């Protein structure tokens, strides 16, 4: 079994696995990091979103063979205590219902705001359009992202 070194959340993890194994399953089943969720397996729902070199990507679409030399951050590495502005804004706006999609949403929004600290509501909508929330929390999510952006500007 080939071995890989995964650069994740500021640490290095040796992983022996099929090079085709998507990062999602390596995180969940090999490293025990279950914060990243499985939703569709084909990159169309956003539940498995992580950061690759600071950009939001779908971990179900990244084979381990493509992970070499990249720095990944999963929800477990976004903040140690839930203090990321997006996490705080999400709690403040009481966004989550079943909550299953929210980690992916938070990861997308966190990467987005780093590149676009002052987005319009329309830009937020466009950025989040690859994600699905079956509970329909979009309205509060939009507010939370704009709130996080506004808090970020104050900070």
């Amino acid at each position, binding site marked *: 079994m080939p071995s890989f070194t995964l650069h994740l959340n500021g640490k290095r993890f040796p992983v022996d696995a099929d090079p085709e194994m998507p990062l999602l399953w390596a995180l969940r089943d090999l490293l025990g990091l279950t914060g990243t969720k499985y*939703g569709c397996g084909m990159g169309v729902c956003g539940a498995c979103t992580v950061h690759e070199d600071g950009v939001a990507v779908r971990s179900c679409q990244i084979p381990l063979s493509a992970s070499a030399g990249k720095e990944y951050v999963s929800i477990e590495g976004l903040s140690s*205590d839930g203090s990321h502005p997006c996490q705080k804004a999400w709690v403040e706006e009481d966004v*989550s219902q079943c909550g299953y999609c929210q980690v992916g949403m938070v990861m997308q929004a966190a990467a987005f705001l780093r590149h676009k600290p002052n987005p319009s509501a329309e830009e937020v909508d466009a950025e*989040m359009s690859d994600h699905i929330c079956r509970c329909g929390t979009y309205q509060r999510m*939009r507010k939370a992202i704009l709130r996080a952006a506004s808090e970020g500007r104050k900070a």
Partner: protein
Amino acid sequence: MKTSRRSFIKVSAAFGGGLALWLEMPRTILAAGPTAFEPNAYIRITPDNVVQLWITRSEMGQGVRTTLPMMLIEELEADWSQVQYQQALPGGRFKGIRLRTSGSGSTVGTYNALRKAGATAREMLVAAAAQRWNADPSSCRAERGTVVHAATGRKLSYGELAVEAAGQPVPANPALKDRKDFRVIGKPTKRTDGAAIVKGEAIYGIDVRVPGMLYAVLARCPVLGGKLAKFDAGAALAVPGVRRVVPVSRGIATGVAVVADHTWAAIKGREALKVEWDRGPNADFSSDQFLLQMREEIGKEKDGYFVRDDGDATKALQAATQKLEATYEFPFQAHAPLETMNCVADARKDSCEIWAPTQCPEVALAETAKMLGLPEESVKVHITLLGGGFGRRLFADYVPEAVEISSTIGKPVQVLWTRDDDMRYGFFHPSDVEHVVGGLGEQGHPMVWRQRSIGSNLSMFGLPSDERKKDPRLYFNDGSPWGSFDNPYNFPHLKADFIALNSPVPTGPWRAVEYPVTVFARESFLDEMAHAAGEDPLDFRLKLLQPGDVLQVGTSMIDRSRLIRVLEVAAEKADWRRPLRQTSDRRWGRGLGCNVYSEDCFIAQVAEVSVGRQANDIRVHRIVCAVDCGVVVNPNGLEGQAESGITWGLSATLHGKIDFRNGAAVQENFLDFEVIRMPEAPEIETHVVLTEHAPGGFGETAVPPVAPAVANAIFAATGKRVRSLPITPEKLRHLPQV
């Protein structure tokens, strides 16, 4: 310690009838006297001043881990900071207490019991303090986790009183707080688990990890009701990480399980597996054909089961000056919760442990025990968070699958349904056809309404028994078409019936169950009648709800004045009386829909929609919603459920459907089963009409009015009436010029 063993047993006995008090307490503690105060199954207060509350419903986004503690804390007068909660599990302590989570009933079904449980504990704590102080209990009061003696300024925490409280007599009828004294109920409260969720720490079924656990996915016969003929495990077993390949005979879609060290190997193993299927009797089934069959059957001159027969509809239709009729169609729908079905089972020789995201833990427990031939006490079911329920998880079919595999391989196993499994198998919302005939009298006065429903909508409940058929009041409980049966409008002649026409598609409750179909037809057709009568659709409805009395239908009492009020509020907030702007590129319109959910929840919605003049693309800009569901426990939660239900309804209105061809579901993932995403999500405004009535359930209530409100708005904008869901731009081709 003042508590004697005798008084302690008295506490137990008083609650022994209904609740499972102390049954789980170890004998040693029973002999020594209590170390904690547990006046009932829901509450435990320990001397270290921790208040532990049990949540007796599954959390699937409706907020029960917040709302249920709110009701307990209100009466208990506990302080949020001292409260811990945990999930109640079936059996043992909660034997005989309902944990099933369905029918928008989490608040309705617990409101009285939890308040009484809290009040009981509070009175016993006050009594314990009064005894310690040698004071009159009426001079003491409970306040934020303490009992206070105002006259002397003395104060004791619940922790300090716990052991003595356990020795107090149990009040038979503890005094419940007056509504005006509520400090928790009615106050907007944020989710107790909001932070855990966004840190990725919340544990759903899919996140359960048990030592030695293997991972499984199943190859399932693509055809509904098909079976495994034979399989060759060789190629699958050659995939690195695959451990076992075993047939599975339990569940809704049986087949072969590939069991591996991790999910990916199981998925790869399934791809490699060679299977032959016995496609069974449904290999020719097509949902298009089934729709044609329903259309044909519904037009036949025969009566179905009458669920309502007021006046003489047949005669009134003959006498009507104007007669209208229309047929509405609703496709099969998937639940498609974002967390697919899954279960972890650890079946051993004489016990079994289950971890499942389930709305029906009692069923999961009973079925597992029966299947393994174990006493129920030997089965433990852990309820995880649910990544969406929506009715799908009222079926425990994925539990026996996992139990069977674990039992076969002798190891704990997690079964995961991949997204295509979840989309193509399960229990779908039935496809239905509704036929409505209406008659107007002189001056366009609405006289008669005739609604017939056809479809497999009854397969989840079964048809009424012969005995119950004699008493139409009981039909409601047998699953007759809600929304048609409990039509709230005051037609002098009203007839409603249903014809059961089953298909091979397994069906089950989907958010709001039968209302989405019947209410789409009812509220659309009312709009058609209003236009035929030359009346404003709001005024037409208000007139039909006069004199605002209480309608008794079956076992339901429907207060029409409450429906009138929410219609008025929604219309006012949506500027119904003021014309909507038109633009050069889009046609704009407003539409109205309303409903009474299960007699206790009243809702009206106004949708503001525009349709592109060129592409016929549909945009729903805004939905204004007014609701009266009596006492609101958590206004934050209620608004969230309005937003959620409306978005759910909108997905089905504009996108959702499952087609079946050659006996198999066509749609496989979110590419071909589209749902509303953020750019399409409308602005949703929720206005609550607060009343003194007991709480009504709101988890599903917001779904049914969405489709008719949008369809009526599209009609207002374009003059085109769409009578089948989903409403796609293709259905708006060849628009009339307006």
